[in-house]
């Protein structure tokens, strides 16, 4: 446990510069976006006022300014996409960086007097923590940017939105920020399960190289089949046999089977088949 925490902390530190850059980029781009969009909107408004149009006429013809005016633009979604893509790449890079270069760090990691599966858990935890960290901080950023909006755009032209409305109006945020805590665990549980399976796939490649890519893809395919097998059965031969709650329980079980299978397989590969 101690070694696991030390390894996790170590892995986190290795990526912390890029991670902090991502956080900073998100805050900076979204803030700049908010300032640019709101000031261009306000200058349009002032132009119209100077032309003698009434406030009502302006709110009807120019529209009001709300947080959604920002969320629809690249200024807001761009950094989120960059962060998602970076973390997706890092899911692979977190392993491959240990093999690359002249100073192959994987020698050191594999010779640490601790269960090798701790490496797997530490790397997975690092990914999870970074994902959840970004998700959490984005919530705070939305609130901060919303306060900024209140300063930049006067009441008459502003349509205030609650946090829930902001999330509701921004499509893919619904997946990232579900209303119910159970849905949250389901969404992220599936995501983290996928990370485990990808990790195992990477270890297959690291153990068997070219052939391993095939094994890895096969492993991922079988994992997916096992996970969705209750649904497959439901729509094919069983003909709506299961009640929704049963499907939920079955998929919780198959999900756990996939996760344990992935951990067990990784444990085996790390102990018996790994190559430096």
């Amino acid at each position, binding site marked *: 446990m101690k070694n696991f925490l030390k390894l996790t*902390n170590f892995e986190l530190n290795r990526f912390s510069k890029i991670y902090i850059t991502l956080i900073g980029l998100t805050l900076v781009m979204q803030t700049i976006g908010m300032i640019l969009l709101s000031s261009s909107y306000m200058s349009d408004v002032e132009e119209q006022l100077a032309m003698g149009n009434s406030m009502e006429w302006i709110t009807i013809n120019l529209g009001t300014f709300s947080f959604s005016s920002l969320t629809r633009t690249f200024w807001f979604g761009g950094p989120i996409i960059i962060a998602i893509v970076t973390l997706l790449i890092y899911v692979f890079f977190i392993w491959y960086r240990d093999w690359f270069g002249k100073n192959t760090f994987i020698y050191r990691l594999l010779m640490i007097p601790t269960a090798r599966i701790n490496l797997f858990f530490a790397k997975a935890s690092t990914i999870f923590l970074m994902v959840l960290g970004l998700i*959490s901080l984005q919530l705070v950023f939305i609130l901060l940017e919303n306060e900024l909006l209140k300063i930049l755009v006067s009441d008459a032209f502003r349509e205030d939105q609650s*946090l829930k409305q902001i999330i509701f109006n921004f499509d893919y945020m619904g997946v990232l920020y579900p209303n119910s805590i159970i849905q949250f665990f389901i969404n992220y549980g599936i995501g983290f399960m996928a990370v485990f399976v990808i990790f195992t796939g990477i270890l297959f490649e690291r153990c068997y190289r070219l052939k391993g890519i095939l094994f890895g893809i096969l492993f991922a395919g079988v994992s997916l089949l096992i996970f969705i097998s209750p649904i497959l059965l439901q729509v094919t031969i069983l003909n709506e046999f299961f009640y929704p709650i049963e499907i939920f329980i079955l998929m919780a079980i198959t999900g756990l089977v996939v996760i344990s299978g992935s951990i067990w397989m990784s444990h085996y590969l790390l102990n018996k088949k790994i190559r430096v």
Partner: protein
Amino acid sequence: MVLKRFWKLIALAITIVAILVTYFIHTALVVASQFPDLEIKTISGDKSVLEHIAITGDYYQEEGNSSPLIVTLEGSTYYEELSYFEKLEPYFPPNEATKLKDNYRNFMRGKMYNPSSFFDNEEHLAYVGAEISDWSTNYLPEYYLEVDVLNKETNKSHSFQTDLPGVEEVNHVDVLKAQVVKENLYVIVKLNYLLADQYVDEIKVYTMDISSGQIVGDQTLFDPSEQSNKDRWSHLSFLNHHSEIGSGDNLLLVKDIGRDLEVNQTDGFTDEIKSELLERAFYIYNISTNQLQELQIPEEHYEKLLLNEFNLSGFVFDTHAYISYVDEGNLVVLSYSLENYKLESQQTYSLKELDMEDSNIKIIDNKIYAVENDMKNTAKIFVGDVTTGEVLYKGEIVSKQNSDDRNDYSLNFYSVKKN
């Protein structure tokens, strides 16, 4: 020392936990405050008539939030406020068929929870579902009947599938009623199909032998060719309808005949089609005796029934069939005895003082329930006794918060149910 070296890990973990916990507490509070708590406020009468009654409908908010809801004497339940697991139940509000699931969990697997597809008595629980096996080349569905009969004594079920005899190209099939009488299962289906360029309804009564799974009787209640008159349209409707698992033998049917008139618009471009109801006849069909009996409608009611095409409701309850309509703020109920098919009593209640424009009507246990359906943030309730004509209760569904600042929502109630 530990803190210093692990500060990134610790800081990140604390940030995540603190923010996410706050977020979920916040969302739970937002969801809870989003939907107003509704209650039933009595204007006059005894609210005990609403015990075991559930009023169901939808809630709409201007900002786009909406949710189905149930209002009872205990208060309101919104679908959106249910827990994740409660939401997994496919039907909200629950109906009589979904309740069967609790007692007959295995039998109810894979069935469509349409109450009219079920029959339930002491000995049997039967299900008949019209299911689509395939789509034909001209995009018409190919139906078959999925039948499952549970013998409650032996706890064994017998299921089979059968084609619909005498049915070729059909647009839609609806199971109106299933009924087990001795060894036979009677199934009443309504078919909709094209006959001589005209969509017609056909009501068929199939008799099935449960043990062999064979259809042994096939009967059509009204001749569909009567409906394929070019100048007239005709509809057959089933009044004691889908929301209940009836164990009674009688079905209340209405046959409407009307025509479409083209009314020339003054602008000369568009022709509006106006529909006119010409004839309306009511029938009781008794499954056990296989008799179709027309109900005699007194002249003064007949005229008004023609004028109020869409304000009609009908029920069969116990020993009586009821026909009810709303005319100029008056709620009229005609009660027919199922023994002799004679009009036994007629009651008129004034809804004017309650100012109910549009309402949903339901008769349960000799009481008539009317719930206003006017997309306002309140809804009036009226309850009357259909045998005596007595007004039992007047009330209103209102927000508990009782404040005028929440005018941003509307309520649409569409059904009254026995709970």
